[in-house]
């Protein structure tokens, strides 16, 4: 299956790239996706995850064609 993986803000800078495309058969969850793109690291507690533009938990199931995103805590608004 094919998964598009996107990174934002400080994580994007840390990864050194804006996205990856994974073509793997053994990815079941968001945490699995992270393990692949981070070469084996566990998913840090503070990172947030989304599947297809909606927040997702690390153990949420990933399906063929999904867009998975990882990003630091959000800081919009002001005041």
């Amino acid at each position, binding site marked *: 299956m094919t998964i598009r993986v996107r990174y934002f803000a400080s994580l994007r800078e840390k990864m050194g790239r804006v996205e990856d495309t994974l073509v793997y058969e053994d990815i079941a969850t968001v945490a699995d996706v992270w393990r692949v793109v981070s070469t084996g690291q566990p998913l840090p507690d503070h990172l947030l995850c*989304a599947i297809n*533009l909606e927040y997702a938990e690390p153990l949420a199931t990933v399906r063929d064609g999904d867009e998975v995103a990882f990003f*630091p805590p959000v800081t*919009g*608004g002001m*005041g």
Partner: protein
Amino acid sequence: MTVILCQTEFSPYAEMDAYQQSMGEAAGRYGATSVFVGTMRDLNLGDAVTQMTLEHYPGMTELRLGQIVAETQARWALIDVLVIHRVGEIKPNDAIVLVAAWAMHRGAAFEACRHIIEELKHTAPFWKKESIRDGERWVENNTEG
């Protein structure tokens, strides 16, 4: 209900005026409008900030803001809601976000407006990078209300 992501400077009170002019039949029905405007400050964590870049997640941002407004409209009796959020390069004293809620009575207007800005700050995928004297830095924590 209108949600706008804005790439360039906007004037929050001119937007309010224009939006109300276009509300048509709602005129005369609302007795209470609660407006929140978030503005870029020139000082953060003790450092002078000369510029800011607001990154976001196109697609998810619009979806999340729409969900926040819809959930707020389901919870309070509102006549209309307007949300405008800047993205991109921002200068001190520029408006960053406008949230407005129109209702018959002030309780609903105030509570809905506050709810939207809190949800937006904690769940909408925006990230701020500040330019300070020594370079740039990501804002890592949201201010408490």
